[in-house]
Each structure stands twice: as structure tokens, then as C-alpha cells.
């Protein structure tokens, strides 16, 4: 793996990297060197380095972090940084590993970001189910406080910031930044409408708030140590650096891999021995989800695409949170679709009518089809129910054999946040490509292929 640059996962093989001593001792530079480098310059210069590096957000939307930081209205204080550690997109588990294996790298990233934007406080919101990550971060924070790396007059400078660890209560929707802010404020985790509630302007307690993903912030120490030019040498021109991808499903070696952005293709990820190592039982690939459960599906035609935001979006899906789910030829598409839709129905926060009622309706129809009680009208009803959540053509990959063109990402929506429209992704993807499987369930009450039952 020596030819693959490792930025955020460089210490994953070091057994005690999660301790301050381990963090300091390991890696190519001394621990917290990035922070010291930042403190030696002005906040503005730090922000400029990050902007120059074109560090794209790793939470899903892929927005440049440096640009996002610049959206804080000038002269409005206090400002906050909120770390989105509520990783819960189906298939995604990269942030969990980052938090468990290298919490100090994240803390250092938080401090650099707080210094750059002048944040008074950092709130680290960790998903409720990730008990181990919470413990590791809590322990790391205690060490960092004791070492005067967090708190008052950090490293003897006049820079002071507190980091508050907050444990979520187990709701997928809280991964959406405005819902996360509501949850932090002590309310039900329900998204706010943007506009007017763009967090950078009106966020936590209606103050400017930057919400960054765990992986995004974990890149900062490396960038500050090595500079933006070094960062841009990795990856492609428009998507510099590396990114973590979590590959799961029907590959021989599922796992989290750090890959250079815009270079590695899906074929590499699934078949290369450094990554997935091939499809399970050497079966044929049937479909794959390129960017978490919310992403429209890709098919073998898209295997040679590199993982890069813009082309993947144009091809009808998204890189999202870097979760890739592989489905081989034995997969029951009705069941796969039902499984994903059920997730969104269960996780709908209940705020917007179309999502609250629509996703559970979709689930009920799919469940009925799966149970063998479908009606011929169900397929069109399903598509129209979905259309009322996400009106108009829904993003979907091209199907050259049928002469169907791709519909680019993102979809339209009648809801505040993308959760409802996300439930449409599996429906549109599966029905466009595998409609006969659904019809077979409805008319014959069984699945194609039959062996899917044990998939």
C-alpha cells in the first residue's frame, strides 16, 4: 500500500494512536504540529491555506470547507464550530474509525478550524450508538485539556477555545446539519429550512455556525503541516487530496480505504486486491450504491468512473459520504429496495408531510409486494407517491442498452431536507432497471432470482 498516500488514516495501524503519547510519537510529524503551525500565523492565513487547498466537505454535499468558512457574516459574534460526528448514512462507517483510532487528529482539526474562524466554542456531536468512539474522544479530550492543548491560552498563546462533547440520541436525521443544531439546542432533531436558516449565518442559538464533518476536519493537521500545494498534488485537479470510502456488501474484503480523489475507479475498489478484492464467490456485479443509502444506484456500466463529485453527479448519483454498497447477481432487488426504503421511513423525523406520510406509504406498498400481495397498479402508484416527494425526473444512471440517458443529481424536493427524496433513490433506481423483478413478485408471488432468499 506504500504507493497510496495516507493523510487521515496514517495512524490507523499504530495500536495506541488514540492516546496523546501515541499520537505524538507516531506519524510523519510531531503531534499537534499542525496546530502549532496554525498558531504561528494569523487566523486569516490559516483560512487562506485551507481555501487554497480546496478541501471538499466529506459529509455528503462536497462543498469546499474554506469557502463555507467565509460565509460567516463579518462582525457577528460569538461563532461556533459544530462537528458532525453523527455518521449514520446506510453503509457509512469511516468517521467512526477516525474517531476511534485517531481522536487527537480530529481534536487538532477542530482547534485549527476554531482558530481560523474565531469560534468561541466547538461542539463535537457524536452519534449516540457509537459508544466506543465517544469514550475514545472523551479520553482524548481529557488528555488534551490536561496538556493545555484545549481550553484557556492554548500552548501559551492567547487563543482559547473549549470543545464540548455531545452524545446524540440515535436519530439518522440529526446527521442533517440543521437538525443536528436543533438537537444540540435541546429540541427534537428536525431540520430547519434553508434559507433562512443557513448555519453559517443563523445556526446554533441563531449565531454563525460552521458545521463540518469529522473527516473534513481530520484533514486539517496534515494540510497545515504540509501546505496546500502538497495537498493538491494528491488526487485530481478539481478534487484534491484523499478520501475515505467504506465498501460493504458483496465484495470479498469489505472495509474503509483511503484513496486519492478522482483517480481510483469503482472497478479498482471492487476488484483490486488492495481494496475489495473481487465480488463475493466471483459472482457478477448487479448494481452498486456509490455514495450511501441516499444515492441513486450505479450499474456495471459505471464501473470505470473515477470517484469524483462532479462527474458522478452528472452521471445521476452522488459521492455522498463515501459509502459504497455492492450488490451481486444473487441480490433480490425488491428486498434490497424495501430494506432501504424502510430505513428512511423509520428515520423520517415527521416534520414534512410528504416525507412523513410518503416514505411509510412506500414502505407499506413495497412490503406488500415483497410479501406476495402486490397489485399490478402498485408499481405506478409507487412511482407517483415518490414523485410527490420528489417531483419531476429523479436522478438516475444511464442505461445504454435501453437508450435511456442519465438524469443528473440532485433531485427536486417538496420537503425541507433530502431525507424524503432519498427514499426515492432505491425506488427509481430499482424500478427503472429491474422492473420485471417487481412485476414477477406481483404476478407470481416469487422473486428473480430465487436464490436471493439467502442473500
Amino acid at each position, binding site marked *: 500500500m506504500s504507493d497510496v498516500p495516507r493523510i487521515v488514516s496514517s495512524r490507523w495501524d499504530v495500536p495506541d494512536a488514540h492516546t496523546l503519547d501515541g499520537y505524538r510519537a507516531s506519524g510523519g510529524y510531531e503531534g499537534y504540529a499542525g496546530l502549532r503551525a496554525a498558531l504561528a500565523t494569523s487566523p486569516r492565513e490559516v483560512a487562506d491555506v485551507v481555501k487554497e487547498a480546496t478541501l471538499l466537505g466529506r459529509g455528503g454535499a462536497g462543498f469546499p470547507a474554506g469557502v463555507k468558512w467565509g460565509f460567516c457574516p463579518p462582525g457577528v459574534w460569538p461563532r461556533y464550530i459544530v462537528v458532525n460526528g453523527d455518521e449514520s448514512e446506510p453503509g457509512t462507517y469511516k468517521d467512526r474509525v477516525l474517531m476511534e483510532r485517531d481522536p487527537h487528529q480530529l481534536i487538532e482539526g477542530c482547534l485549527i478550524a476554531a482558530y481560523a474562524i474565531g469560534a468561541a466554542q466547538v461542539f463535537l456531536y457524536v452519534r449516540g450508538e457509537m459508544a466506543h468512539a465517544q469514550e475514545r474522544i472523551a479520553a482524548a479530550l481529557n488528555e488534551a485539556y490536561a496538556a493545555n492543548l484545549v481550553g484557556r491560552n492554548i500552548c501559551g498563546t492567547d487563543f482559547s477555545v473549549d470543545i464540548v462533547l455531545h452524545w446524540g440520541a440515535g436519530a439518522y436525521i440529526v446527521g442533517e446539519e440543521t437538525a443536528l443544531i436543533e438537537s444540540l439546542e435541546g429540541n427534537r432533531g428536525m431540520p430547519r*429550512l434553508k434559507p433562512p436558516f443557513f448555519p453559517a449565518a443563523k445556526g446554533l442559538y441563531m449565531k454563525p455556525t460552521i458545521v463540518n464533518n469529522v473527516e473534513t476536519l481530520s484533514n486539517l493537521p496534515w494540510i497545515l503541516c504540509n501546505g496546500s500545494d502538497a495537498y493538491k498534488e494528491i488526487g485530481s485537479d478539481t478534487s484534491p487530496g484523499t478520501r475515505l470510502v467504506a465498501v460493504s456488501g458483496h465484495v470479498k474484503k469489505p472495509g474503509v480505504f483511503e484513496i486519492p480523489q478522482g483517480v481510483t475507479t469503482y472497478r479498482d475498489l471492487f476488484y483490486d486486491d488492495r481494496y475489495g478484492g473481487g465480488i463475493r464467490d466471483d459472482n457478477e456485479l448487479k448494481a452498486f450504491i456509490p455514495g450511501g443509502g441516499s444515492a441513486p444506484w450505479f450499474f456495471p456500466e459505471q464501473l470505470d468512473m473515477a470517484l469524483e463529485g462532479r462527474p458522478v453527479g452528472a452521471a445521476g448519483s452522488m459521492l455522498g459520504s463515501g459509502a459504497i454498497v455492492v450488490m451481486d447477481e444473487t441480490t433480490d432487488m425488491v428486498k434490497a429496495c424495501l430494506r432501504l426504503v424502510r430505513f428512511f421511513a423509520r*428515520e423520517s*423525523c*415527521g416534520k*414534512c*408531510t*410528504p416525507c412523513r*406520510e410518503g416514505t411509510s406509504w412506500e414502505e407499506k406498498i413495497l412490503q406488500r409486494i415483497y410479501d406476495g400481495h402486490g397489485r399490478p397498479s402498485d408499481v405506478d402508484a409507487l412511482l407517483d407517491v415518490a414523485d410527490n416527494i420528489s*417531483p419531476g425526473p429523479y436522478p438516475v444512471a444511464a442505461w445504454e442498452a435501453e437508450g435511456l440517458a442519465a438524469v443528473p443529481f440532485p433531485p427536486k424536493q417538496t420537503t425541507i431536507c433530502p431525507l424524503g427524496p432519498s427514499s426515492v433513490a432505491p425506488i427509481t433506481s430499482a424500478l427503472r432497471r429491474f422492473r420485471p423483478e417487481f412485476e414477477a413478485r406481483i404476478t407470481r408471488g416469487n422473486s428473480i432470482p430465487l436464490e436471493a432468499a439467502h442473500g
Partner: protein
Amino acid sequence: MAEKPPPIEVTDPVTITLDGTPVQVQRGDLLIDAAERAGTYIPRFCYHSRMNPVGMCRMCLVEVDAGRGPSLQPSCMLECSPDMVVVTDSDLVKKVQEGVLEYLLLNHPLDCPVCDKGGECPLQDHTMAYGPGESRWLEEKRHYAKPVAISETVYLDRERCILCDRCTRFAKEVAGDPLIHFMDRGAATQVNTFPDDPFASYFSGNTVQICPVGALTAKPYRFKARPWDLSEVESTCTGCSVGCRIAVQSSRNEVLRYMGVDSPPVNWGWVCDKGRFSFEAVGGNRRLTEPQVRKGDVLVAARWSDALDAAAAALRGDPSRIAVLGGARLTNEAAFAWARLTKGVIGTDNVDAQLGDGLPAELLLSLPAATIDQTCEPGGTILYLGPDPKEELPVLFLRLKHAVLEDRARLFELAPADTGLTRYATRSLRYVPGAAAAAVAGLLAGGELGDGPIRVVLGRASVAESAATIVDAAMVLVGSGREVTFLPALRRANVAGAIDMGLSPALLPGRQKLSAGNASLGWPKLPAEGGLDATGILQAAADGHIDTLVLLGADPLADFPDRALAERALTTARTVISLDTFGNDSNRHADVVLAAAGFAEVSGTTTNLEGRVTALEAKVTPPGTARADWSIANEIAERLGTEFPELSPADLTAEIARVAPSHAAVTSAALDAAPDGIVVGAMPLTYEAPEPTHVPAVDSYSLRLVAGRSLYGTGTVLAHCPSSAPLAKPSVLRLAPAEAARLGLPDGGRVRVVSNDRSFVCDAAPDPGVPEGIAAMYLDGSASGPTAIIDAAAAVTEVRVEAGS
């Protein structure tokens, strides 16, 4: 729907294109309101113009192009900006509306035939206007236990609920009582209360009114009528002096419901529960339905002519030995007729509409006035010195709370103990009863009030400290050299109107002094000199100087602060005449009881605490042979030799406009044109400030009594409302925890409260909101409450509290 966006003044016009037509709107106004003002109604469920938008029902989505191509936007959260192009009826918008309605109906039980809301239901109406016409739903609907009583008066049906967040938002944001919440999530989301924590809000009834489906229903109205069988008139609630506008709805001559009407200067559509559900008393089966005359020890039914003859006979004697108490329940017209009878025909000035628990009328008329809107002005400074507004003037409390939380007003509260307002106050200062003037002076000197105008809400936090101490505080403000205006916080419904009509010593109708006279009145006579106020009247009666005492809807035994004095007065006076709608403690002593028509049975006008005159409309006929108060006055006048020509309240309204200078503009035609009412002219009287009251020094032995009113204390009307009456709780003595501990009762217990030679026994409870040195208790009108020990002549009431009974 009756809900309309409140009117706004367009100060910063921008042009938007609405369905192809350019319209001028206010910059920053919400699109949903701007469109409605321009004549285009955008359907909605969650949006309510008196609450912050949440944009969650998605019914108001429209296509908007603000420069970056058309997109679907919730019009309830979008502020108008220049050159916005809005399409409210495109195919896409219609598809989305159909979709939302189909979704909302999926799990809705469609039990419209037995739903109270059926016929006035936004979900029904929108389904008719924008809905898909049929459902494709084949699955089982959601089921919940129903209905669930979430409070004494409100029932919840979660199957009907469409989760619009209106009730929950109202409870949290408007009422400040976050007791109902969303629970669970996704399709299992439901509205509910926490166990053992009912929706015990003084404002819960508003959620029933704003619920866009029949999910919340009011116990007093459930299954009483179909909306299309109701007819309504707009009127003003006379439960207190705020004067909330309401619609009085009846069917088959029975009042069945009050609904809040959005009066922008007053109540914004909100009504307190006590007011909303007080309609139950109107048709109550214990109303006085016929006159009664005392025969020996008992009151027996009489013919009107006999009762009126008896009353007139008792009013023929020496005018100085005749007195009239009360009148704040009356309409302005009846108050005028009674002032005319008393002062112009009988010739006595012993008249007082207040019952020793208010402030001197001449002081009130001398103070520069502030309306509610002026008091609650955005960014303004409010000084609150009065009763707990949440308990006594609930909707004024909502307005003050809104001013602080939403409009950046700074509110300074001076109170002897915590009130409902305390948690919203910028600063809440405690003063020892008797020391209000010093507290005001201290606050002024401290500079915290800033340099701008000060709006003072002025009333009496406690009837156990004399009005004179509050007068002193008012005079400090008047003499401060600052720009100070006042909003009187007197509780009784039409006390301001009664004073304006001359039901107060030394005054004539139209805010005129008796000493100045008024030639245009044309009354046969006028009292030669000023008479007694309520305390003076009761003292004189107790001393045997009053032969005939008229109770104009007054119950001094329950309401006068000094019950012992009231009792002696009622038993000593030779003849007591009572005009009332219900029997009460006081009129059991009466010799003549005249059955009066009550609210919703007589038309006329009423005046709220701002001096705002609004129209009252009769909706049903009075029970039995009960008569309007004004016509009883005229009947008695006729028996005393003076005939007045009026045939209706409108004739009296015209007469008032003719003779009362302050009311010259208040004509029936003007009121028809101004449903929000007319604020009567500010023409301050001169007021000679009395010498500052001598208040005894605080001793370390006694506690000072604070006696205010609670919303559900006792009250005749409340007692006759079967749904609300159970909310009345026995009053307890509230002590600072340290005081309670000193008594050996850290968790409360039975105590005897002693003041001079009087005492009563009650339960005491520790309350951290009460400072040390204070004993606080709500009046409960009973013989074993604070009025048992308050001395009307004392400046403050010092008490000793002893454990045990």
C-alpha cells in the same frame, strides 16, 4: 377560514409578479400573507399569521423564481424581495397540493359526520378545493386510543391530527406553557402530553380554535352543534377588562361557543380559557329568572311591577342615606342609565363601581394614557406595577410576553412576590407591601429604565395594601419629569366604562367633575357635593347611616377586601336592592332582587382598560323575565317621577355621545365601522395628589400579607361553568421556604393567620417565589380567606402565622 393576516403598513414597497400580475408588497413580508392581502389565497395548514412559521405541512408550496430559476418554496417562510416571480397555480403546484392532501388523508379517519370540526374544517375545505378526489391508499390506517383528555377542557384525537405543529407551537411560543409536544417520529409521530403533566394552560382553548382538523376538541362544545347550525355575532368578552373580541355563537337560542376574533390592537385572536368557556354560565340553569321580594325571612318570586315599586319606594328617601355599589358588570349604556338615576333623579353621589380593590377614579382619569399597543411598542420600556397579569388579565399577559420575547421590549416588574410575568421580565424587583413608591423612586434613580418614554402598567398587586400606597407610587412617576404614560390594570370588565359614565363619586358622565357640572345633561337634579366611595359607603352603612344600598351586580361579601365591614354594612342597611344574574352571598341579604339580563343577552358597548369602546351584541334572549339593567333604571326613574325616552341601548349610546364630551365620537355608526373599537378621548382631569401615606415600619415579628387574584379563584360566573369550575382550587398561604421552615412546616401544613383581632385557618405551602417577610395568598371569596382579616382602613396588613389550627 376566518384567520386573516393582520393589517400592515407598506413602508418599503417592492414589486413582485404574482400569477402574472405585478403587485406591490411590503419588502420582507411573508409571501403567503402578501399574496393573501393581494387577493390570492395560498392554502396552508401549519401557517398561522400570529405564530412563527415552520414550513412543515408543505401545503403552501408555490413556484418562485427569485433570479435563479423557478423552484418550489414554502410561501409561509419566504420573504418578499424585489422582482420575485411567483406562480401559485401551475401544474406542478397543483400536483404537489394534491399530493400533500392525499398524504394527509392517508391515515385520517374521515369521521367527518361525527367530528366537531366537520363543516368548518380546513382539511375538508382544502380537500374539496385542492385535493385529489380519491385515495389510492390500500393499507391499514394508524390507530390510537381516542379521545384522550389532555386537560380539564381539551380532548385530543391523534387519529385526526395532521401534525401541523400549531397547538404545540402555540403552547410553547405564545402561551409559554410547553406542555404538549411531538413524540416519536416518522409516521408514528404524535402530539401528546407527558404522563401526569396535563395541558394545564390558561390558554389551552386557543389550540382547539386553531387546530385545522378535529384533533383537539373542547369538552364544553363537543357534540353540541354542527357548525352550519350556528349563527354568530361579534362581541367583546367581559370576563376581564382586556376586552378580547370574540364571536358569540348560538343555536336554537342557546349560546354554545365563543371564538377568539383577531383584533389587532387587543387580543390577536387569543382568548383565555376562563373567558372562552364562560359561555356555559349564560344558559346556566341557576340564573335568576324573575324578580324576588323579601317576605319575612325568605325571598319570594314577585311580579316585576311589585318588585320595581318596592325598589322605588326604598329609593325615595333622603338621598344622602342612599348608596349604589358596583356597575362594572354593566354595559356603558346601563352604567349611564344608572348614573343618571342615581345622581340625576335620586340625587345621591354615594356611587362607586369599584369595590375598594381598585384605584381612585380621578387619579385614573388624570393620568396620560397608553394603549396596549403603545405599552407593548417594539423596543420600548415597560414598568409593570400591578396584579399578576397571567392571573387577572391573561391576554394582556400574552401581549406583554410577546413584546419582551419577540419585540425587544424591556420590562421591569415591581411586585411583592413572583408572578407569571417574572420569568419574562428584564428585571423583576421585589418590594415590601407599602413601599411601592420607594421602589419606583429607586428604579428611576438607578437609571436602568433608560432615557426613552416609560409605559407604566398600573394596578394593585394586592388588596391587602391600600390603594393610597399605589397612588403614591404613581405620583412619583408623574413627578419624575420623564415621559410617562399609563395603562390601568383594573380587572373588572367594564370598570373603565362605569367610571366614564359617572358611576364613581364626584364624577359625571364623560370624564367630567361633578363640581364643574354639565348643562347638556338636562337631569332633574344633581348631588350638591361629592359622595362616598365604596369603603366610605360600607362604613356608613355599617354605622347605620345608609338606609338603602343598591348592589349593581356587586357581591361585596366576596369581592370587598374587608369582609367583616361588608357583612356589617349588608346586615345594618335597612333595604338592600340587588340587580344580578345569579344569586350570590351578598344578595341573599337583599330585600329586593331584580333579575338582570347578562352577557350575550343585551346589546350596547363596553370599555376596556385602555378606554377602548367596543360593541356588545345580544345573541340570545334573557332567561325568564330577566330584564336589561338600563331598562330597570329607567323603570325606577319613571316611578320616581322622571320619564326617559330611550327604547333601546342604541338610543342610550346616542344620548351618551350627546352629553359625554369624551364619547362624542362614539356613535353606533362609528362603532359599526370600527369593530376594533374607538379609544375615547384623552382629556386628563386635574388630580390633587394626597399626602404620601404613612406606612408602618416593617417589624421582624410580622409578615406582610399579599392578596391577589388567581384566574380560577372563585367567581360567580366561574362557579356556574361546569367545565371550568373544577379548576378552582382552594387557596393556600404561600410562604418563603425559610419562613415555612421557621414555622416547623418545611413541607407546608395547616396554619392560623392572625391580624389584630381577626384570624382564619388555611393550608400553607412553601413557595420559593415568595420572599421572606411576605405571606401571599390568592383571594378566594370565602369567609376563611384573606378578606377575613384585611382592614379596609389600614395601609398594609400585618399578619402572624402560627402552625396548627
